[in-house]
């Protein structure tokens, strides 16, 4: 029988990795190896079932989720898991975002494809425990032995009597929490593993006001903050005189680090902001070539994240037979459609915040610290997110809205404009990847090395304090996907180079995976060609018998089979193959591509993914489809450019993205389940798409494209 507190101390790549094991350099490499094969821990604030679940008199169960619903379908997955262990129907299960006042707080974040993976065990234990609590309470209320009671669809029956969960809960004054009971036999699952429709579907097809942007409070005002569009600038001062007389202006607030306008409407606040004369001090001038020069491998500080054999020596400059290629990816914007924002109301002893955030706990700390209050005095009521993708791991609007609310004594809602979103994003950093390899006489890889130069992803983030950055060494986010995953190669090496850039870079869905897999998997095709081998068998012959390699091999073989992979272009259409393993989920794509009038067109993508145990096959498919299209958008179209010290473009359209016309008309997703634990699904399918498209393009044009966005 599992101990009830087990999930709080489960070690994994989070706490265990950060605090427990990482003290010397070889150990850092051990960590790196573990990242792709270890379960994430859940390090939440409470294991009390009655804080997680609320049984209502109408016999519904509310699950107060510490994880945010940002489109990934986590509410539906959690509902399925909990409904099964609670023995209620999915219609009786309602999932809501836990207010931080509830005490159910995730001290880290919603992200990294970890929600289902980390909550799979604890949530089942919590739900099963809650069910026993209800049975025990019913036994007392009915005067029947608990052992004689059974549960079905929220009704407890036995001894000729029956009572609903809602009736039981209404009569309980104090719950007793038992030890964790045995969990349900998987063969009795009603919802887990089934394609249950999303629980938020009706709200989302009827336009219900569920997002941060939709939140309101009585007497609410609108705030607007002036931000520098320029890079590497500091706020010096502001002349507010012209703005003060503008219609609807309530107050102009000048702080050390920002200036905000509060007005009676969004339009009036924005119009008044345009009249502020803000002076910024520019530290140095940046242009695109400065960024490209800064990002080249060989600058900054290298850290070896993977080492087997003597790849470094074998691939030194001047060694004979070294094949070398380099790849580039640009600055990427999140471009989520709901702008970052916040509604805050500061009262004497309490701050109430409604917003879309991936980091409720961090947001409340940040607001508390700015206002000189404790984090417990700041209550975050999270809303649905109009897209996350890592953008809402940073919530500057919360502090700004709170400061403005305090200044006017009323609730203030404050949002980024789209231009501010594009210019003040926490971007996906640009990257430069250098790959080198040497083949044996019979066309196998003897040695391979991967140098990854990237701006910060996890480093520099408030979520990863400096001391931990020192312990871990290289930026886990920047080299995600950069490890050599063909463990049958006798000599391999990966090196991460850290580059400081003059703009904020951070988490962008799948982090380094997109650019790093593009580089590694493009290079694998280049090597296969040099070796005179088929790219599928070439990949397979460099895998071992380890569990991770076998799972990857199965995904590779199945994708090739499913797509009827062929090397030759037929009628102008060619196939490209690529694969990767991320967060313990191997995934392979075959992209079917043509080039018409100098434009790449993706007709079909075959995706085979093995996320282990699947909770909801329909929503896992949805994540694959969405990742493929978002990934295509990033590798085929998107690019931010530094011009005259600012980032451009500042609007959709000019920031080219995949639209309906660009999405493949066919996406065939096949799910394998070669692990009995659920792995991540929200990011792994982004990995291979860039190289799959690039490898197909090469088969048509015979010219290797090594730069994102792909241009022919």
């Amino acid at each position, binding site marked *: 029988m599992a101990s009830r507190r087990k999930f709080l101390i489960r070690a994994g790549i989070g706490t265990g990795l950060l605090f427990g094991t990482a003290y010397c350099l070889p150990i850092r490499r051990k960590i790196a190896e573990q990242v792709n094969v270890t379960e994430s821990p859940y390090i939440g604030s409470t294991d009390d079932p009655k804080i997680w679940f609320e049984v209502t008199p109408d016999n519904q169960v509310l699950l107060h989720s510490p994880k945010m619903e940002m489109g990934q379908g986590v509410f539906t997955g959690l509902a399925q898991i909990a409904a099964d262990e609670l023995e209620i129907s999915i219609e009786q299960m309602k999932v809501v975002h836990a207010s931080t006042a509830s005490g159910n707080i995730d001290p880290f974040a919603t992200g990294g494809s970890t929600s289902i993976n980390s909550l799979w065990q604890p949530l089942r234990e919590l739900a099963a425990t809650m069910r026993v609590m209800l049975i025990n309470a019913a036994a007392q209320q009915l005067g029947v032995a608990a052992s004689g009671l059974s549960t079905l669809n929220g009704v407890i029956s036995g001894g000729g009597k029956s009572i609903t969960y809602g009736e039981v809960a209404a009569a309980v004054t104090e719950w007793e929490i038992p030890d964790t009971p045995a969990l349900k036999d998987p063969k009795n699952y009603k919802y887990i593993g089934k394609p249950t429709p999303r629980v938020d579907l009706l709200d989302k097809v*009827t336009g219900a006001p569920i997002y941060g942007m939709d939140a309101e409070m009585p007497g609410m005002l609108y705030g607007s903050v002036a931000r520098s569009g320029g890079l590497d600038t500091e706020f010096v001062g502001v002349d507010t005189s012209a703005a003060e007389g503008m219609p609807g202006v309530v107050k102009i607030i000048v702080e050390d680090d920002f200036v905000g306008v509060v007005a009676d409407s969004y339009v009036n606040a924005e119009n008044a902001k345009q009249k502020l004369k803000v002076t910024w001090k520019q530290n140095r001038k940046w242009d695109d070539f400065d960024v490209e020069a800064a990002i080249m491998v060989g600058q900054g500080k290298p850290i070896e994240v993977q080492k087997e054999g003597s790849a470094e020596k074998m691939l030194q400059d001047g060694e004979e037979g070294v094949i070398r290629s380099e790849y580039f990816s640009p600055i990427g914007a999140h471009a989520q459609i709901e702008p970052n924002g916040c509604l805050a109301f500061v009262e004497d002893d309490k701050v109430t915040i409604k917003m879309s955030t991936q980091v409720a706990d961090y947001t409340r700390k940040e607001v508390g610290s700015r206002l000189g209050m404790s984090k417990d005095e700041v209550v975050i009521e999270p809303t649905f997110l109009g897209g996350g993708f890592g953008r809402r791991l940073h919530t500057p609007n919360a502090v700004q809205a709170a400061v403005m609310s305090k200044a006017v004594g009323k609730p203030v809602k404050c949002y980024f404009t789209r231009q501010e979103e594009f210019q003040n994003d926490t971007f996906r950093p640009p990257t430069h990847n250098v790959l080198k390899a040497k083949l044996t006489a019979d066309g196998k890889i003897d040695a391979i090395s991967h140098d990854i130069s990237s701006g910060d992803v996890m480093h520099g983030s408030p979520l990863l304090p400096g001391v931990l950055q020192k312990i871990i060494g290289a930026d886990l986010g920047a080299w995600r996907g950069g490890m050599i995953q063909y463990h049958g190669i006798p000599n391999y090496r990966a090196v991460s180079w850290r580059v400081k850039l003059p703009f904020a870079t951070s988490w962008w869905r799948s982090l380094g995976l997109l650019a790093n897999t593009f580089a590694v998997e493009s290079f694998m095709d280049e090597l296969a060609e040099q070796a005179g081998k088929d790219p599928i068998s070439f990949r397979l012959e460099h895998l071992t018998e380890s569990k991770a390699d076998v799972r990857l091999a199965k995904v590779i073989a199945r994708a090739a089979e499913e797509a009827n992979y062929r090397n030759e272009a037929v009628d102008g259409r060619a196939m490209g193959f690529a694969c990767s393993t991320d967060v313990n989920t191997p995934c392979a794509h075959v992209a079917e591509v043509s080039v018409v009038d100098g434009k790449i067109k993706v007709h079909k993508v075959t995706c085979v993914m093995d996320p282990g145990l699947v909770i909801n096959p329909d929503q896992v498919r949805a994540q694959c489809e969405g990742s493929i299209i978002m990934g295509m958008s990033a590798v085929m179209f998107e690019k931010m450019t530094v011009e005259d010290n600012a980032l451009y473009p500042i609007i959709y359209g000019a920031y080219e993205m995949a639209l309906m016309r660009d999405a493949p008309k066919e996406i065939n997703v096949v799910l394998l389940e070669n692990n009995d634990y659920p792995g991540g699904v929200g990011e792994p399918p982004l990995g291979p798409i860039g190289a799959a498209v690039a490898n197909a393009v090469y088969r048509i044009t015979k010219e290797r494209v090594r730069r994102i966005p792909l241009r022919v």
Partner: protein
Amino acid sequence: MPTTFKLNGKQATTSAAPASPLLWAIRDDLGLKGTKFGCGKAACGACTLHVDGKAVRSCSYPVKLVEGKEVTTIEGLGTEDNLHPVQQAWKEEIVPQCGYCQPGFMMATAAMLNEIPEPTDEDIDRNIVNVCRCGTYYRMRKAIHRAAELSKGEKE
């Protein structure tokens, strides 16, 4: 001067400045939040609604232009108990992920189906040009074809 128009079949009046965007009058003055703000420059389509049955990007559409006209938002397209064929199709195909852009897409689709009851893939590519960051286009295309089928069934 206030602007008076029909909003989802009911008389509505807003005192928003005549040149200010319709979007904010609908969202903040009249309280209907289904029409979304995405960019403010008519570039993403999240704010799409209907003016006299035609799709309009309300973030860049002055309030004064709806005087005396009929405005329909997602709230007026259908209701939970009586979904419009487009909403029904969206539900059947489980299109939304984050869902934020979806009202704009559904409004754009409903307007297109008024003009082109049985759109081809090319019609869809040409007419549905909103932005979805979650990448739901693949399911959306299926849902648009399904909505056309459902609408046809309703008319027959």
